[in-house]
């Protein structure tokens, strides 16, 4: 994918009139998808970059591993990349070859993130994705508010990255090397919070602006790849013991899942609701990780990318495409042999399961509602015949992958799972769909107070942090003035006297 992206950039620079750049990009993505499918024959598949030197300081080189656990993410990302390129032809604002190159680049980085075999590799890829997103977003930000949000979002994700490095320190202090296979249980809490922070779940905040100018296509790619790269960490976390910390994290996750589900259910359209979809589905993945169910975390994460990808990429109206979207609801239902069938394994208290089930129901209902919404999208029938042939393929690829993953290809395939939870979520989702137009209290206008209440809560946290920052700033300024002012030399003399007397005492 990197190679094809490079080819597209070179072609753009040397032969801007070249007519087959889209074709080259799409064929490149198709080859990537086929190669990813072929990985199945050789799982587990490992690859390492050259060892960092001096080797006695760096125990682990950057390395990659595809196994039965992370395969769904790998196939989801390559499938999404191809789908984005195939569906781009039908959009009015059909992007340039640079956007296609960017899509391939993101796909490659996403693939590297989900196959990272140790935390060192993961932090490197996380930062690459964060920087790529920062540059792309800033390039399209037109207002000071938008730029500010992009910087805050970047800073929050960096905090998540640093938390992963702190987990590394904790691991090393226990004399354990920090690899995904040997992480001590003590690091679990840091890893879950690191992932949650990057996803906007722990604590609940909106890392992405819903009014971003990057909408379908590249915007979807950016959002979903970024989410998948953070979610993959959950697949490697050692099971946490029952503790107060775990319970607090669970409560925060439930709040985030209900908030995300509710906002998604009431979003005015699917692109506006996209950040809430990511928060809601990520919360379910995090709760699986907290329940000691890494398969479930992978299942919810893959469903986030695959089903979300389908919905967010669709920009035209067509009966069969709408049907395929409804079929995709099965993948997130947790019913037997669905992609998320393993989602409800693991030990969680019943009350918590019920609350999470409500969140899942809302997410499913929101998905169906957005599918059935009578939109203003262009009809596929009005497009040229070659687009009519290619466009649906992009959507059906994602549907095929999610259905196939329910039956084969990874450790969570062919699972019966928790039938009761699957049926419960489905009934709840259908019930909500039936109720929504009938009960006024569930209408969109009622969600605004909730949104503003949530943002007020988040704002008050930011305000508190800002006040703390200002107070600390005043203290440092006071010390700086002392040392840099006219009396600074006297303070230095005092310091030297103190230093000498301390050393003398030590010597005695």
């Amino acid at each position, binding site marked *: 994918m990197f190679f094809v992206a490079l080819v597209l950039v070179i072609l753009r620079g040397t032969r801007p009139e070249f007519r087959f750049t889209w074709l080259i990009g799409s064929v490149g993505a198709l080859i990537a998808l086929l190669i990813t499918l072929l990985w199945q024959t050789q799982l587990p598949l490992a690859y390492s970059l050259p060892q*960092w030197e001096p080797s006695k300081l760096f125990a682990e080189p950057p390395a990659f591993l595809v196994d039965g656990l992370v395969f769904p993410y790998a196939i989801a990302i390559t499938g999404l990349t191809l789908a984005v390129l195939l569906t781009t032809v039908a959009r009015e604002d059909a992007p340039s070859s640079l956007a296609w190159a960017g899509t391939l680049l993101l796909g490659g980085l996403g693939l590297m993130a989900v196959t990272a075999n140790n935390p060192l590799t993961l932090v490197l890829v996380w930062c690459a994705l964060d920087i790529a997103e920062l540059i792309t977003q*800033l390039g399209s930000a037109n207002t000071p508010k938008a730029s500010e949000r992009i910087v805050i979002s970047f800073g929050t994700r*960096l905090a998540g990255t640093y938390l992963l490095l702190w987990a590394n320190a904790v691991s090393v202090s226990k004399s354990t090397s920090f690899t995904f296979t040997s992480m001590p249980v003590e690091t679990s809490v840091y890893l879950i919070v690191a992932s949650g922070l990057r996803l906007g779940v722990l604590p609940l905040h909106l890392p992405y602006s819903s009014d971003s100018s990057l909408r379908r296509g590249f915007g979807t790619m950016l959002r979903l790849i970024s989410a998948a790269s953070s979610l993959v960490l959950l697949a490697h976390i050692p099971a946490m013991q029952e503790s107060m910390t775990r319970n607090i994290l669970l409560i925060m996750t439930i709040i985030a899942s209900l908030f995300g589900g509710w906002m998604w259910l009431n979003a005015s359209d699917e692109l506006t609701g996209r950040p809430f979809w990511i928060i809601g589905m990520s919360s379910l993945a995090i709760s699986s990780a907290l329940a000691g169910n890494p398969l479930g975390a992978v299942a919810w994460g893959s469903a986030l990318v695959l089903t979300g990808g389908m919905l967010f990429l669709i920009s035209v109206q067509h009966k069969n495409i709408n049907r395929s979207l409804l079929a995709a609801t099965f993948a997130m239902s947790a019913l037997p042999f669905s992609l998320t069938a393993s989602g409800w394994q693991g030990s969680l208290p019943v009350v918590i399961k019920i609350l999470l089930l409500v969140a899942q129901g809302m997410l499913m209902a929101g998905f169906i509602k957005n599918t059935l919404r009578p939109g203003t999208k262009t009809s596929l029938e009005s497009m040229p015949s070659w687009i009519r042939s290619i466009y649906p393929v992009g959507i059906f690829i994602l549907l095929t992958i999610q259905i196939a993953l329910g039956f084969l290809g990874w450790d969570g395939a062919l699972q019966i799972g928790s039938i009761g939870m699957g049926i419960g979520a489905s009934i709840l989702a259908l019930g909500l769909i039936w109720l929504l137009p009938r009960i006024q209290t569930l209408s969109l206008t009622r969600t605004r107070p909730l949104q503003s209440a949530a943002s007020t809560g988040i704002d008050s946290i930011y305000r508190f942090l800002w006040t703390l920052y200002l107070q600390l700033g005043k203290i440092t300024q006071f010390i700086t003035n002392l040392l840099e002012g006219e009396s600074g030399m006297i303070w230095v003399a005092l310091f*030297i006297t103190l230093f000498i007397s301390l050393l003398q005492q030590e010597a005695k």
Partner: protein
Amino acid sequence: MNAPLLWIFTPIIAGGLLAFVNNNRISTNISGLTAALLALIAFFIPIDKALLLGAFSFKLSSSMQLFGRNFIITSNDAHFLTILYGITALWIFGSAVVGKARRLSSLGLSFIALLVASIAVEPFLYAALTIEIAVLIAIPMLASTNNPPGRGTIRFVIFQTLAMPFILFSGWLLAGVEASPSDLALTSQAMLMLSLGLAFLLAIFPLYSWMPLLAEETSPYIFGFILWALPTVTTIFVLGFLDRYSWLRNSTQFTEILYISGILMVVTGGLWAAFQSNLARIMAYASIVETGLSLLAIGLIPNQSTNIVFMLIIPRALSIATWSFSLSMLKEKYGDLTHSSMQGSARNFPLASAGVILANFSAAGLPLLAGFPPRLALWEGLAQSSLFSTFWLGLGLFGLMISAIRTLAIMVITEEGIPWKWRESLNQLILLGLSIILLFFMGIFPQAIFYPLLSALPGMFIHLGQ
């Protein structure tokens, strides 16, 4: 021919002569080429080994006597000289692009040569004198008739000058300690003098107040050059002390002093950086953190941590060079480097702003950038001995991270409707582009390019890092 004459006295003389050349371009080219040539010779020509060139036999001897003092440069020092003169050459060539060639091309070369002399001189306590001369030579670089010396310059000279008597005294006392190692009172006095001398020399908390002051009142490019060269060579000087005296190397008290000083510098430098509203001052605090990291590495396990100290050298040079180069360009355009002046600068000077931001992130240890691998090594080494100390290191780096994010916010948040434009010149774009690529490359492949040079550096010491 001998090595000290080539790497110490030739550049001093060349620098002196170039001071009389009025044409900036000629002066920069000669100075830069001299430094580059010295780096290449250090890399390719062996010292103390006969070299056959056809019928001619040539040998570069390692020592030279001057006024009864020896200057010794052995083959073990060659790689360090390659790094030092190579980076100096890049710095001098860069000075032409930012318009600071006049001051750096002649004096910069002499400044570096004097710092090399401080490592080569025997008895080593004379190093204090050569460092002092280097500091005095730096004054015309930092101040001029148009830009008279301010409080920062004066403090710089005072603090560096105060280091000299303490180091001279310690050298005198250390000779006594060598003669009678059981004399604890003498040992303690020697250690005290040495600690104070090094505290002034390395600008240990709170003796670094000259750095942010100087950052505000002088050219960022010249200041960056001093910030890179002086602490790098003095760190090697400290390692030389430890290597020479086994009692010092094995003294838990001395290593503890280094360790605590390192932590203090990292924490105060990082936290102070987080609250600055002048970009040049942030660079000064980042440099304080860098020196703190070196001390922390030395104090951690003196016999094993030299690798980390050497790993810090090139990323430090690269990030300060990129940082000061970018700041110079921005100062030229905006007049000063306060946050209020820099608002939205990224829209007009995207690459220069990226240079400032990425260099700041590199200093904060952002993964993917050059500063990350050595910080990761130190981070893990520290975690093995104490998670508490690791927390303080993390806090210092977090402070730098906040300063980088604030700078990013200041540079990108601007009024509505201002388009992105590249206002940098082609030369500036090329230099900045290359340095940014190198920042990333060294962060992803730290073992490539420079590792062969760095891996040979522990050879400079007999006991450390062996």
